[in-house]
């Protein structure tokens, strides 16, 4: 661990405040990061973490206060030019141009050139090398719009760590990664740290924070609560500092699954793009977890079921009746709702306000006499705000300006507005703070208790384990196994997910 007293800080914020228009979001924050340390920044959704690191990287200018780089006050250039000062950022929002290829994205803005021409082959090879270092098999020539969210995040990471960073700032880089990817990523972070890079790390996953950081700064509602050495506190204490109240058990107690409950959704031999013959059944009142590595086909299964992608084989039975949804609207009418994990690309319209996003899926419910009933929309917004604790200045704020966690909550609200029988939630708590996470888990459990059936697709092992009655583990588009009761343990899930165990032998072990 870096010796906090002796090492000078590289980058610091001194009494920094920030308002967007009339609305203050940061109040006189002091923050610094030293060479060779990992400084974690934590806080509830909307606490101002992203805003602070935007200020530290020059993308936003502080309303008051100063930024100090190498002991000198400095006005950081906007437009990402601070990268040339060695300040490199992985933004919370994915920051990739969809039409470019992976290699092009990694080198965007700092292309290697010879005589003015791009050294394409070399950049490609280097991109390949960086990606190999992250142990991911992403083709450097693939276009970004063909990648999954997780792969895009890996490209972002590759882009950031390949730069000559003195200060590396990462805003929830692991939100979309599984623990396996996270481990590999942490290796890289530690390597950089050993090289003396100063690292700012934002995460809602407290175990990661504990494992990686040297110091922790807690923000709440734009105020600095404390900066402490990591070793001095337990995760629970930190969590309480964040939310400002005592946190009880994160996961609600599981009610006993009713094995006699009728099967409400029955999938048999489903094949679709990315899915190879998946079967499973979902009972009334059950929470069914879907685990697996990234790209294992969980999302593909769900999208095929609700009619977002074309089914090529197999049957789906809803309450015993075979169904074949050709559009998601039909699924919703049948009481089946799907919440995507890609909130920016597929979930929310970033350039309009909260209220219109919330009601988009269920707009038909807000029609009176053929016209939209604004009062009913407002009511829905109030309902969702209460239920999911969405925090924004007002309902007209563009969703793109919301904090990541609040976007996620809004998306949950949007899905739940349809009052479904069956809820499929893909990555329900991505980017959500512990306090809210707890609320969401309780909401899910309560829904199940009411007799609704829920599928939780998640890359967070703890979440799957903590919530589910049964867990389906997938690999390579296939169901490897279904775990029940005491079997639901991290090690067991990993064994199935990695193909070491399960219905299909590891046919790609040699690959």
């Amino acid at each position, binding site marked *: 661990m870096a010796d906090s007293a002796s090492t000078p800080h590289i980058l610091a914020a001194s009494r920094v405040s920030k308002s967007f228009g009339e*609305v*203050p*979001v940061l*109040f006189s924050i002091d923050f610094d990061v030293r060479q060779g340390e990992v400084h974690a920044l934590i806080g509830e959704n*909307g606490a101002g973490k992203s805003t602070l690191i935007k200020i530290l990287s020059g993308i936003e200018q502080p309303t008051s206060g100063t930024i100090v780089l190498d002991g000198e006050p400095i006005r950081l250039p906007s437009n990402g030019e601070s990268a040339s000062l060695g300040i490199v950022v992985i933004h919370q929002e994915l920051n990739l141009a969809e039409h470019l290829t992976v290699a092009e994205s990694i080198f965007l803005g700092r292309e290697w050139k010879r005589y003015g021409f791009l050294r394409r082959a070399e950049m490609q090879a280097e991109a390949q090398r960086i990606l190999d270092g992250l142990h991911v098999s992403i083709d450097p020539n693939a276009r970004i719009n063909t990648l999954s969210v997780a792969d895009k995040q890996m490209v972002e990471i590759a882009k950031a760590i390949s730069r000559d960073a003195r200060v590396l700032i990462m805003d929830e880089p692991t939100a979309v990664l599984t623990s396996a990817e996270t481990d590999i990523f942490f290796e890289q972070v530690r390597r950089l740290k050993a090289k003396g890079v100063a690292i700012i790390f934002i995460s809602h996953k407290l175990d990661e924070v504990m494992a990686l950081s040297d110091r922790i700064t807690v923000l*709440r*509602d*734009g*105020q600095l609560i404390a900066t402490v050495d990591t070793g001095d506190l337990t995760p629970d204490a930190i969590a309480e500092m964040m939310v400002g109240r005592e946190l009880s058990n994160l996961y609600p107690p599981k009610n006993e699954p009713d094995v006699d409950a009728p099967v409400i959704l029955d999938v048999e031999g489903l094949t679709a793009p990315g899915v190879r013959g998946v079967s499973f059944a979902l009972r009334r009142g059950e929470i069914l977890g879907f685990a697996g590595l990234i790209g294992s086909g969980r999302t593909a299964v769900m999208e095929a079921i609700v009619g*977002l992608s074309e089914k090529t084989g197999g049957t789906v039975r809803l309450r015993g009746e075979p169904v074949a949804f050709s*559009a*998601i*609207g039909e*699924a*919703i009418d049948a009481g089946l709702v799907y919440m*995507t994990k890609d909130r920016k*690309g*597929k*979930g*929310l*319209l*970033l*350039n*309009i*306000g*909260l*209220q*219109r996003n919330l009601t*988009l*899926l269920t*707009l*038909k419910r807000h*029609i009176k006499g*053929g*016209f*939209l009933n604004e009062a009913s929309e*407002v009511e829905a*917004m*109030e309902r969702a*705000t*209460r239920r999911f*604790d*969405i*925090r*924004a*200045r*007002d*309902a*007209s704020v*563009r969703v*793109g300006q919301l904090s990541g966690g609040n976007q996620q909550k809004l998306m949950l609200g*949007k899905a739940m507005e349809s009052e479904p029988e069956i809820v499929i939630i893909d990555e329900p708590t991505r980017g959500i703070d512990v306090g809210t996470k707890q609320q969401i888990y309780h909401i899910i459990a309560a829904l199940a208790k009411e007799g609704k059936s829920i599928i939780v697709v998640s890359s967070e092992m703890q979440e799957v384990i903590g919530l589910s009655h049964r867990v389906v583990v997938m690999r390579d588009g296939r169901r490897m196994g279904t775990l029940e009761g005491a079997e639901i343990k991290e090690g067991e899930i990993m064994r199935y997910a990695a193909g070491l165990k399960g219905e299909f032998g590891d046919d790609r072990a040699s690959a």
Partner: protein
Amino acid sequence: MTAQAHEGVKPAKKRFRIDYHTFGPLVALIALCLLGLALNPAFASEGNISNLLTRSAFIGIIAVGATFVITAGGIDLSVGSMAAVISGAMIIVMNAAIETLGTGVPTVLLGCAASVLLGLGAGFLNGFMTTKGKIEAFIVTLGTMGIFRSLVTYFADGGTLSLAFDIRDAYRPVYYGNLLGIPIPVLVFALVAVLGWVLLNRTAFGRYCMAIGSNETVARYSAIKVDRIRTLTYVIQGLCVSIATIIYVPRLGSASSSTGVLWELEAIAAVIIGGTMLKGGYGRIGGTVIGAIMLTTIGNILNLTDIISNYLNGAVQGVIIIAAVWLQRGNLGHLNIFRKARG
């Protein structure tokens, strides 16, 4: 700790938002009118104002339709030619119907019915090829633009189709008449604009148009029937063209291959001047109406004075359009919103 952050989500501040956007084009229009007045006091005469509004009705009605298409992320280059071919067809139908239906209102109504049918059909054709044929809207409507214009040339045998003079008397009031002192075309324009506004801002359909134009994938994931809605925008565009045609035909009583040339550019310009974004996702009927009136006013102002060489009309027009948009965007700090929304 501030109360603010925990208050949750307040309802949007409505009044403020409306002002922001409608204000820009309006200010530019007012500036333009003052210029007109300065050049020639006759600008403000009742006759001139009424002429001006009546004229802007054609482009205005078409532009209301274009607002839907553009809001949903499409574009329609065929509207001018569509207007020409529909005019032509109306004239053929009405001329043919004289024998059976006589020269009165029934014939005119038949012509109008034909116009509406053709407009809906042409719009559907554009929409269908764009969505189901999966061809870029620019290409589809460039193609139909050529096709429609050719058809009217063909119907007219290279010349002009003209409405039989006997019917004109029954039909003339639709353009030249007025109700309570307001010219009929202006009334129709107002009606179309109001209906368009309601449709875009107060119905699910309008909301869907914005969603599709803003992000098609999100729209699809939100259970919106993207292809159907998008096709409908073209159908609405077709309907608007047919309405514009219905009030256009009695004015000139003829159609030829030069009818409606460049109306598509004018309609799109009116839409963009009004603050709708060409990339979709954001539409304003009110702005479109002002944009259409503004374009007509520019033409009118050029006729107010002969201090400028006729040859430079186009230049003055160009300068005024750019200046007007600059005024409303730049000066009112309006642009920040636009730029961000685009990013």
